[in-house]
């Protein structure tokens, strides 16, 4: 008898879990199916995947060491023997530098978005949930940061921090915090007075638990959308900082630092700037297309 109850309940549990799995799968399928029908989003996704692939497998894909100097082979034109994209002023293989540059540029963009995202989401959750004076103080400070043009803020932060990979990530991350906080705060405001939140309060769910297991998941769509589109602007920011000589220090290749070198050799070897910038444009375009696509699927309200 005891055995039977045990198995039935286990069965029931299994079924429940299965139903739960089916439900989440169906939801994912739904999002994915909608996304699949969106041609431009798929083009964006393909670009993003290709760039991430290039970045991850840079050591395998790059034909040369990106920092290997061959003074005699300086400024070889594209399609020269062994150098599809040609070489720069030190005779370094441009293709290899662009491939390794993808790594640095994407790490910075993703890292900056992550840093800004995590801190911004936390601040936004706290501000939106607590309300009152805490909300005012946090949001006023965020407004203050938002009053600085993004590039200007990152320029100052880079002057404070000094050049380097981690510092660029921190600078871009700090610049990203306020907008994430704003997005999340707005969502929390909408969600926190919903019926199910009140129900949670009634049955005595703790605030932390309510915030992270009930409110945050319901505010996740705009965060995902915003983060994807943000990676695009973070790539531009990194490139802009490195272009101004404040971002990634030489000789490390990032798309922005290659572009900076391309600027000085624009008259003799315009292809250096052309190629590195084209990679920036295509990648940013990819993230924008993909971001627009998931926005349409996940959060149609946000569509302007």
């Amino acid at each position, binding site marked *: 008898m005891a055995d039977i109850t045990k198995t039935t309940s286990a069965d029931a549990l299994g079924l429940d879990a299965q139903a739960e799995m089916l439900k989440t799968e169906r939801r994912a399928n739904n999002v994915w199916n909608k996304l699949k029908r969106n041609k431009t989003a798929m083009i964006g996704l393909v670009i993003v995947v290709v760039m991430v692939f290039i970045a991850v497998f840079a050591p395998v894909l790059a034909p040369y060491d990106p920092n290997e100097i061959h003074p005699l082979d300086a400024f070889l034109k594209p399609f020269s023997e062994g150098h599809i994209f040609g070489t720069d002023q030190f005779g370094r293989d441009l293709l290899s530098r662009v491939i390794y540059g993808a790594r640095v540029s994407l790490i910075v963009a993703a890292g900056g978005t992550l840093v800004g995202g995590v801190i911004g989401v936390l601040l936004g959750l706290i501000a939106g949930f607590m309300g009152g004076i805490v909300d005012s103080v946090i949001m*006023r400070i965020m407004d203050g940061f938002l*009053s600085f043009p993004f590039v200007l803020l990152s320029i*100052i932060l880079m002057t404070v921090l000094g050049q380097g990979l981690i510092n660029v990530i921190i600078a871009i991350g700090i610049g990203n915090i306020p907008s994430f906080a704003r997005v999340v705060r707005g969502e929390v405001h909408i969600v926190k007075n919903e019926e199910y939140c009140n129900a949670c309060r009634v049955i005595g769910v703790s605030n932390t638990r309510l915030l992270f297991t009930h409110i945050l998941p319901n505010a996740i769509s705009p965060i995902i959308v915003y983060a994807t589109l943000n990676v695009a602007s973070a790539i531009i920011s990194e490139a802009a900082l490195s272009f101004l000589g404040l971002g990634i220090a030489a000789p490390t290749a990032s798309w922005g630092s290659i572009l900076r070198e391309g600027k000085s050799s624009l008259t003799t070897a315009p292809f250096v700037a052309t190629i590195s*910038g084209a990679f920036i*444009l295509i990648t940013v*375009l990819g993230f924008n297309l993909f971001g627009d696509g998931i926005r349409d699927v996940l959060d149609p309200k946000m569509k302007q």
Partner: protein
Amino acid sequence: MLKTILKRILQSIPTLLIVITITFVLTRMIPGNPARTILGPQASAQDIAEMEIKLGLNKSKLEQYADYMIGILHGDFGTSYVYNRPVTSLIAERIPNTLVITLTSLVIAIFIGVGIGVLSAIKQYSILDYIFMILALVGVSMPIFWLGLMLVNLFSVQLGWLPALGMGSMSKGIGDVISHMVLPCFCLATIPTATFARITRSSMLEVIHSDSIKALRARGIKESSIIWKHALKNALPPIVTVLGLQLASAFTGAILTESIFSWPGMGTMIVSAIDNRDYMLIQGTVLFIAVVFVVVNLLVDVVYMIINPRVSYDSKGGN
């Protein structure tokens, strides 16, 4: 109405105070001693100490902050170490140059962008619409510093049609000035044009399919008048919001564009101030731009309230 506008103005005061504080804290965090930077590497310890007293750097951070705040309230943004001139006079000298290219490019962007957006909306899903929207998407994704280099390479280096650097001078005639402006303005106008085109299209599409427009059609009003007069007017609010954002980010664009074209504006001034560790100048210009940013946002909100009175700012609280 007046009350909401006043309230919005009062709301921007704490933001301004925070902006001033952030600027102060960040510039104090820039590594290196300004006194040493001014006097050069050979300066004796005594000279440096004297210079620090002169600059007020020997005081406590709190006193420095108070001095700085009082100065700003008196319109004193400090003195540039490198130029040995008040920051305000340097800004006054450079700001017209920056305004010339930012405003020109914004005006161009509004006309072309809104025009493209309206055309795309009335010809939705046509080939024209697709071409415009693909161009607009490329436009918003454009790294403008790269675009600047490509324009210089094509029009100055390869074709030799346009000058690449500097501002030109009135003494050589208006043609010289305009020819120097073409490339920087093209560069600066790219992102705003694309953004206006996108926002106008979506805003127009929403309006065109509304009942009020159908009613106008039913009354037999001329289609062109419906589109350009009635529909566009109703589609304006989001365009105004974007205008404010673009006006503010035009300054960011100007920093990059100016440094490509050696345009003698605020952007090149900031970049060289950072190179020279000219703290007061960095602090002053950064603060100036941030204040402009806050004021522009305020104006945009006020204009927005006037053209779209349905918006209530009371319920939004912290926004």
